[in-house]
């Protein structure tokens, strides 16, 4: 046994010294690419010699898994790169792996994660830990399909992820909007709420017929954020929530979010199970979908522009499901991205993969297979390309694109999301008797540690 272990240690030592020899070369490649000295031919050639790209992504969806294996793997093989799609249960697992490997001294060319599908807090963590490859997103051939001009307000979601500057260290992959769906077999379309006040009135007439995903799940956080925007005492909606907590300050934050949280507390007895004093919040969108399908709730909200069409296509939504506009003017929109970590073992292959994912071809097939909306910007595409995307779309049911565009709101700054999440947990989940300003300042202090 001892000999065996010694053998392993020696082998591992040998392997790591081999890896170190490659390390310098990978770093030189990184410098050359980010400095604009490497041509795309150089990248492609290096990608072919690297051979493989390890993409870590949430593997809980059959359609996405099929699309990865069937379409992406085939197309990347034509570019000389073998796709290794690693399915994970939570994006945080990949972040932890990157950070653990960096902590063990594994740098560029030596880790095991080449690219991650992520957004929000997970990206913010990588950025905070300085664990990103660098500003690659605007330096690929297909970067032309994305708006990088900071003066154009439409570029917001390409440059900021939950309010955190991306620094072009991640490339937009898909754009989503928070959309609510109702089962029209149970609710008349005329009775559907479009504001939070109407939602409360609906629940008073039909107690228990609604709930939202429980924070800290991001789908739950987003519902809380929308309620906070709508109840902003200054009437400025999402605007003040684009700053970081350091700029906003705990006191101001508490003032701004108090009405929204008080509203959420006031509807708690009217939510599913609330009549018996035990409001039920589903843990994730899967659980919420189940409640919606089973008719426990009449309405369900989640990120999913095409969620209704997709849900009808795979049987996870009830037959009468239709989307509707709620809350008016505050339907939060965000994007999700592909990031390359600082210790990617195959950085050039990761770039080739990211460039492929940004192509119109990949965006069209992704939309067709999985119902994930495009991450590229339509005004940067040719007419034929826009038509191809429109034709691939599973379609909107119950709302029009114009309705959705007219009611868009940006996501909340990632540092504020942490505070909102902690405040919700203490004020609503744990039913703290403390004043909201005390809870918020405590949350800010705890997060600063």
């Amino acid at each position: 046994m001892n000999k065996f272990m010694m053998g392993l240690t020696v082998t591992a030592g040998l392997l790591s010294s081999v890896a170190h020899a490659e390390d310098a070369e990978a770093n030189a490649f990184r410098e050359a690419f980010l400095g604009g000295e490497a041509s795309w031919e150089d990248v492609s050639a290096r990608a072919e010699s690297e051979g493989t790209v390890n993409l870590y992504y949430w593997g809980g969806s059959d359609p996405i898994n099929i699309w990865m294996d069937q379409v992406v793997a085939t197309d990347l093989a034509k570019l000389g790169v073998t796709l290794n799609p690693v399915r994970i249960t939570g994006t945080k697992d990949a972040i932890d792996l990157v950070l653990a490997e960096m902590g063990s001294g594994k740098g560029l060319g030596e880790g095991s994660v080449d690219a991650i599908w992520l957004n929000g807090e997970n990206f913010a963590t990588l950025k905070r830990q300085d664990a990103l490859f660098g500003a690659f997103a605007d330096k690929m051939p297909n970067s032309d399909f994305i708006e990088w001009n900071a003066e154009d307000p439409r570029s917001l979601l390409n440059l900021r992820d939950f309010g955190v500057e991306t620094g072009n260290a991640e490339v937009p992959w898909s754009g989503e909007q928070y959309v609510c769906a109702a089962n029209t077999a149970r609710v008349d379309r005329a009775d559907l709420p479009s504001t939070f006040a109407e939602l409360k009135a609906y629940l008073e007439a039909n107690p228990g017929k609604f709930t939202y995903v429980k924070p800290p799940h991001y789908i739950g956080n987003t519902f809380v954020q929308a309620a906070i925007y709508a109840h902003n005492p200054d009437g400025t909606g999402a605007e003040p929530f684009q700053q970081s907590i350091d700029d906003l300050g705990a006191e101001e934050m508490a003032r701004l979010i108090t009405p929204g949280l008080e509203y959420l507390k006031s509807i708690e007895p009217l939510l599913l199970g609330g009549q018996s004093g035990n409001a039920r919040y589903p843990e994730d969108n899967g659980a919420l979908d189940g409640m919606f399908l089973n008719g426990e709730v009449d309405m369900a909200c989640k990120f999913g522009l095409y969620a209704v069409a997709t849900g009808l296509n795979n049987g996870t939504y009830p037959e009468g499901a239709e989307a509707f506009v709620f809350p008016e003017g505050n339907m939060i929109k965000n994007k999700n991205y592909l990031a390359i970590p600082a210790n990617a073992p195959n950085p050039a292959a990761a770039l080739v993969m990211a460039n492929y994912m940004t192509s119109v071809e990949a965006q069209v097939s992704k939309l067709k297979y999985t119902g994930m909306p495009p991450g590229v910007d339509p005004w940067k595409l040719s007419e034929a390309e826009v038509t191809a995307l429109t034709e691939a779309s599973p379609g909107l049911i119950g709302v029009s694109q114009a309705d959705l565009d007219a009611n868009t709101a940006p996501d909340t700054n990632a540092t504020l999301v942490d505070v909102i999440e902690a405040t919700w947990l203490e004020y609503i989940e744990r039913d703290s008797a403390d004043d909201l300003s005390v809870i918020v300042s405590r949350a800010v202090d705890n997060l600063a540690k």
Partner: protein
Amino acid sequence: MARRKFKSALNSRLSGFQKIYLLLIAGFILGPFIPLLIQSFAFRWAWPDLLPGTWWLEQREKSLLPLAWDYVLSPYSRVWEATLNTVFIGLVVTVICLAICLPAARVLAREKFRGKSAFEFFLSMPLIVPEAAIGIALLMIFIRLGLAGSYTGIIIVHLIPTIPYMIRMLTAVYQGLGTDFEEQAMILGASRWQVMRMVTLPMLLPGVVAGALFTFLVSTNIFLLTFFMGQGKIITLPTLLFSKIAGGTLDASAAGITLVVTVPGIILLLITERFIKEEAFGKGFGN
């Protein structure tokens, strides 16, 4: 054949109460499988319908992507890869575990040395310390050694919870065996190797088979340690199932995968059931 035997046993030997008791137990064991089986063929199954409103076969032609069993049995579900990995890792773990535990059990059963009871306690430590604690600590070490995400890494961590079980089983077998037969063989001129090969091993075999079966089953069911060490790169049936049901819903393909996960264990039990009952527990422990 088996059913007739079961029926006649049910009719002849058991009292009415015993029969009901037996049926209840069977119901508890098989009951959960029934909704699972139905779900695996469903397309849309909403409460309070007793059966799915839409079946998978009705939607099969209309769907762009494979649904339900089409997905489970397609390469996209990775069920086959996970099964091969699970069986391969289970077999290697069992063999290494035996190689470590056979000599150890012999010493523990027959020799007396200082600190033996403390050592025995130490051996069962992995059963007491939470898996998550071992897993995360080992992961940090294994990443440095380059073993994380490799088969070697997974096999090593699988040895941690299996060795204590195997040692306990084999120690009990050795204790029941006594040294008489081996001594007799030696008196008659057998070499140590011959004694080992022709006397000790055959007598140990039933216990060894029982221990090996148990080790294999434990190994094929380890989720957390496999999940840590495999880093998502090496998938086994438990990690595949977890990633499928972690979303909180059991759709048709998740139900199908759940059913597949139970198959290796059932096959193994069916093959060895007879052997274990008659040989291992009859001779190995009953002696």
